[in-house]
């Protein structure tokens, strides 16, 4: 082979490769026999439930379900999970600091003026139910004889702290404490779709 033609060929190759475009991601050399299913892209961002415009901090709500159905409570704030944080107050109607779903609540037009409660402990984690420790086969038949109290002291203290702010505000309004103590009922001739709350 003539050295001059090799050199020319080499120079020509260099000129060609200098301007050459190579894909960074090359098409695969191997394809599976069946099409591999890929899940669709989900670009959804989770937001807390939209709070009804009729529900504001201090609004009196009527609980429609649960152990405290029919009771009227004070709305405090919406937690990041979307649930509403309410309080009886406990001394007035026995409803503690509790999470409640917006769908199971009627918002009345009565709003109590409460100063904004900025408490770090009022989060979802505080109210989440503690998972019971799972028992293995041997322990299943042994009764749980732990002396844990039903309601933690932390919760009781938090309740007292929050109600110390809410109760005086409630007592300022005439007849409001007795209103919160009473339960909501429907009497003859009353239909929820015709009532104004």
């Amino acid at each position, binding site marked *: 082979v003539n050295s001059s033609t090799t050199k020319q060929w080499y120079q020509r190759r260099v000129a060609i490769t200098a301007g050459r475009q190579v894909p960074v991601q090359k098409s695969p050399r191997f394809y599976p026999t069946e099409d591999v299913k890929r899940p669709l892209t989900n670009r959804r961002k989770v937001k807390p439930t939209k709070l009804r415009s009729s529900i504001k901090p201090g609004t*009196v709500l*009527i609980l429609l379900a649960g152990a405290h159905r029919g009771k*009227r409570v004070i709305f405090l704030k919406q937690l990041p999970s979307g649930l509403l944080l309410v309080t009886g107050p406990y001394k007035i109607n026995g409803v503690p600091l509790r999470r409640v779903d917006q769908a199971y609540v009627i918002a*009345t*037009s*009565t709003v109590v003026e409460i100063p904004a409660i900025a408490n770090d402990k009022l989060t979802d984690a505080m109210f989440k139910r503690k998972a019971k420790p799972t028992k293995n086969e041997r322990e299943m038949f042994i009764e749980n004889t732990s002396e844990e109290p039903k309601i933690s002291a932390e919760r009781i203290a938090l309740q007292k702290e929050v109600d110390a702010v809410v109760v005086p505000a409630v007592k300022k309004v005439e*007849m*409001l404490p*007795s*209103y919160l103590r*009473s339960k*909501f009922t429907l009497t003859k001739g009353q239909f929820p779709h*015709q*009532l*104004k*709350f």
Partner: protein
Amino acid sequence: MLYQRYIEIGRVCYIRLGEHAGKTCVVVDMVDQKHLLVDGPMSGVPRSTIRLNQVAITDLKIAIPRGCKTNKVRVELTKADISTKFAKTSLSKKAEAKKDKAGLGDFERFKLRVAKTT
């Protein structure tokens, strides 16, 4: 006399049921045994036929000829000052009270209940 008030031309009626419930109108003509032609230019009732059972008779009456035009009805209504006269009737007052009661909120209803029992 068995009845004091009669359905007649010019009788002011209070509409109990239907689209124009709560408004007053004047009987302009009779269509058949169960229907009237009414008009209420001052109260916003268009000239239309209405069933007899939708309507309650009031004490008030104006003098108009049968089937007269809406403008004539309007003139006679203002001359007789029916709107102020109707506001004094017990029917109008009861309707107002019923409307107020329906507009009560939950707290107001509670206060009313307590006030009634004490």
